[in-house]
């Protein structure tokens, strides 16, 4: 990497030389912006998913019951908590507050969802994943969409893992407060 010792030392922000700041800017571009897109996209998905479920918590509970992984009372509790958790995660991501932590929690949730859908698929159950509201057992004439649901969740997981690895993004509260 070239050094810029021959340049006059003019101090920029945080006592950096301008040359170092320049190098950083070149190195940094455009990753933090890609991170911003990833962060906001994942946040928007969480908010939509949570908002579609939060209005009918009973239905959200039934959707979790339909996975038949937990006793009904536990499943109903999970179904009531998840929408709020998803909305909170979405807000944190969109604001860019504690991005790495939010991304880790997102990744953990997504892995849990993927395992849930995979187990339903493996057991031959016919349910709606309830990912964005509704949920429950499928009608006789409807077909499960486990494949596309799994692919979608894996895609979101990739986005979340990217943010865990590179949590520094533009237009974030993290950057403002650091």
């Amino acid at each position, binding site marked *: 990497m070239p050094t810029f010792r021959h340049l006059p030392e003019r101090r920029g922000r945080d006592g950096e030389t301008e040359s170092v700041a320049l190098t950083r800017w070149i190195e940094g571009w455009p990753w933090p912006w890609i991170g911003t897109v990833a962060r906001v996209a994942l946040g928007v998905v969480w908010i939509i998913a949570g908002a579609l479920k939060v209005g009918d918590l009973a239905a959200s509970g039934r959707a979790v019951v339909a996975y038949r992984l937990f*006793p*009904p009372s536990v499943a109903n509790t999970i179904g009531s908590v998840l929408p709020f958790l998803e909305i909170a995660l979405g807000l*944190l991501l969109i604001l860019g*507050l*504690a991005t790495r932590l939010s991304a880790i929690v997102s990744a953990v949730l997504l892995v849990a969802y993927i395992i849930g859908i995979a187990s339903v698929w493996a057991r031959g159950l016919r349910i709606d994943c309830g990912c964005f509201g509704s949920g*429950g057992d499928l009608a006789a004439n409807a077909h499960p969409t486990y494949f596309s649901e799994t692919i979608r969740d894996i895609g979101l997981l990739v986005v979340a893992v990217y943010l865990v690895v590179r949590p520094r993004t533009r237009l974030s509260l993290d950057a403002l407060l650091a």
Partner: protein
Amino acid sequence: MTKGSNANVSKAQRMVKQQMAAERKRRARILVTVAAVAVLVVAIIVGLSVYRSSKPAAVVIPAGASDVGGTQSGLVAAGNGPVKVEVYFDFLCPFCKQFEATVTPTLDQLVSAGKITLIWHPLGFLDSHSKPSGYSTHAAASAGCASDAAKLKAYGEGLFAAQPPEGGPGLSDDQLIDIAGNAGIINPAFASCVRDAKYAPWVTQLTNQAVQRGVTATPTVLVNGKVVQPPTAEAVTAAVNAA
């Protein structure tokens, strides 16, 4: 002061400044993390408290409840024979309507022959398939009202005959009450039972019990506790004769 020591002083100052900046950053990061964790914890607490406060009303069990499998809450639809035939169904499920048309006549014969007790478990599996959601549970709860009037079987047949399409609003209370009238239930108590959704908590309990019992689809038929798959008239008859 020499030029060298001057440089040393400014270097030291710079180091102190850097350390202070690093310390500031560290504190900011901790603060941010604590704030984010607080947001997530508050979300979880809100969800839990909403769940607590929305606990369903006390479960009232309709007249005619059976005690098969310790569930205490399926309803005896017909007969009192020694073999227990349990049918788990959803009033909105098209296959259940088909089952009603194709297999129930056979079950009726087994009832008249005194061989079986027919027990119904009306479920709310397809609640999300009506708009607004919840028709399955509402219809099943109204079946509880019909059981009170000792006309469950006739009323259930009427409900299947008038089965609404999935994705619609389902039958209105007035339509349910009309169907009951055709089944011979002329009773204001039935109407108020339907309108108050008196047995909706019972249906929720019944649905949960079905899930715990491993019922994953409707219709599901159990003969003396054993699943008959697929639930055809021949298979059910064979299972009853073998029991």
